[in-house]
């Protein structure tokens, strides 16, 4: 094989690639990223407990993705390597979502134009700040475009109606419970059945078992990413339960503390970097 047998205009080539990537992304279930009073929440429709769409990158940075699992998993690992290497060679505070978003944008852009197949992914890189104004949410698409979003993002097959819903109903300072309920309600609207109708009732009920929920909690020391599961998620999603926020302490059960279930919180948490119990 020496060269292409036919002439294809660059415009046509890019359009074909974009269509291809968009089709792949539209097949997947959606992910919503939205700010709440104490941080940034991630809600994905994902029945799997092991294949995550939302993950921790660094102390204050998280990653959410839709599209082809193997491709975004590859990007996630690259992001963890990027962040850990940067934090190791400079300082933990020098790892920023902006730097990572730029690296991802360059990578996605190069793959889109130079490789035979673009990545069929859309990702969000979010960093929680010390106040809601300092939160950063970057949305990256398959061709390497970056958008700096304020407050919320929806990605995936049903992104457009969800985004419209968020535009109408999201406001700064929502409690975690309100933010999660809003996201779940919008995710539950089936775009196919809902097309044309305005404000139609949810056509499905999404239970805790079909959801992957995580937060970047600005009030935690050091690693701020926590998944939310078990009884805590049920309580937050229920309109009757008064729980409206994630507990400040991790679970007491010995083991990995990446998930908050709201069962028996511990009294103390430690911080390997500052070497002292948090006061």
């Amino acid at each position: 094989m020496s060269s292409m047998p036919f002439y294809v205009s660059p415009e046509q080539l890019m359009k074909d690639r974009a269509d291809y990537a968009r089709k792949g992304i539209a097949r997947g279930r959606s992910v919503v990223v939205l700010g709440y009073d104490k941080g940034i929440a991630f809600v994905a429709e994902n029945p799997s407990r092991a294949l995550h769409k939302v993950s921790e990158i660094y102390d204050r940075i998280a990653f959410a993705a839709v599209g082809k699992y193997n491709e975004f998993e590859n990007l996630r690992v690259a992001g963890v390597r990027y962040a850990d290497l940067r934090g190791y060679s400079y300082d933990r505070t020098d790892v920023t979502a902006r730097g990572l978003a730029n690296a991802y944008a360059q990578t996605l852009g190069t793959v889109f134009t130079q490789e035979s197949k673009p990545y069929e992914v859309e990702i969000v890189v979010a960093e929680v700040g010390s106040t809601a104004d300092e939160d950063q949410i970057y949305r990256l698409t398959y061709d390497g475009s970056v958008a700096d979003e304020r407050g919320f993002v929806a990605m995936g097959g049903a992104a457009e109606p969800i985004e419209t819903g968020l535009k109408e109903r999201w406001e700064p300072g929502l409690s975690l419970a309100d933010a999660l309920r809003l996201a779940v309600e919008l995710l539950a609207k089936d775009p196919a059945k809902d097309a044309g109708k305005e404000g139609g009732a949810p056509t499905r009920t999404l239970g805790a078992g079909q959801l992957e929920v995580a937060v970047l909690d600005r009030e935690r020391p050091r690693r701020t990413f926590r998944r939310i599961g078990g009884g805590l998620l049920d309580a937050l999603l229920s309109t009757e339960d008064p729980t409206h926020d994630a507990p400040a302490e991790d679970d007491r059960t010995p083991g990995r503390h990446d998930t908050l279930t709201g069962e028996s919180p511990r009294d103390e948490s430690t911080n390997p970097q500052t070497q002292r119990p948090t006061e």
Partner: protein
Amino acid sequence: MTTGADAGRLPAAYLSTGSSSFTDFVGAHSPHLLPSRRALPVGSTMEAPHGTTIVTVTYDGGVVMAGDRRATMGNLIANRDMEKVFAGDEYSAVGIAGTAGIAIELVKLFQVELEHYEKIEGTLLSLEGKANRLASMIRANLGMAMQGLAVVPLFAGYDLDKRTGRIFSYDVTGGCYEEHDHHSVGSGSLFARGAMKKLWRPGLSADGAVSVAVEALYDAADDDSATGGPDVGRRIWPTVAVVGDQGVVFRSDDELRTTVEAVIAARQGNPGGAR
């Protein structure tokens, strides 16, 4: 630096699949950042600050690790309030004796290694897995050790499967040995070991183990010039980490002051201390 259209793109090493080890990734991508990959002039030795005594004592439900605060360079005290006991991750502590600069860099790498594995694999390494990762880092440092820049850590952690505290010691070649009950490394370790042998008994509480560790460090400082004793005037106390099912908890200065003052008071007119 590469130039061209894809200059800002993440290099291939970032996107390659396989290893969940941060050290392996750094070794492949930017080896100059690894503490053990520095080329030293052949046949020369140099003097650099040395950290000294670390002790570990198991108790019922965990393990205590404590270290003095002194770093020495030849006959000088290089630093009197250095920390030599670190949390490796939530359930393990690592204490260092030997060339301080390299040891601290090694601990930093080890901490990132454990967190990196946790993030990529979504699970914690087993305690033995952590001990073995540390062993491979020490092994990589052998060339430097032969030129006088040796690092000898002591590793202790809470085993989430066996629900007990465990201790691992190392030699300069990277050999990793599990120790039982208590152990010590560094220049004052001979004296500390003697003290612990007499004071340790099965079924100690966490507070009891902290007292044993502080007594042992006191004895080490008593007879080894490179080990620093508690400095009451400057309020410098040993670093003490308690590792149990609640994770690594460092004792606060106030708690340590009480323990240390009790040890000092008990030794007035009784320099041999508790027995």
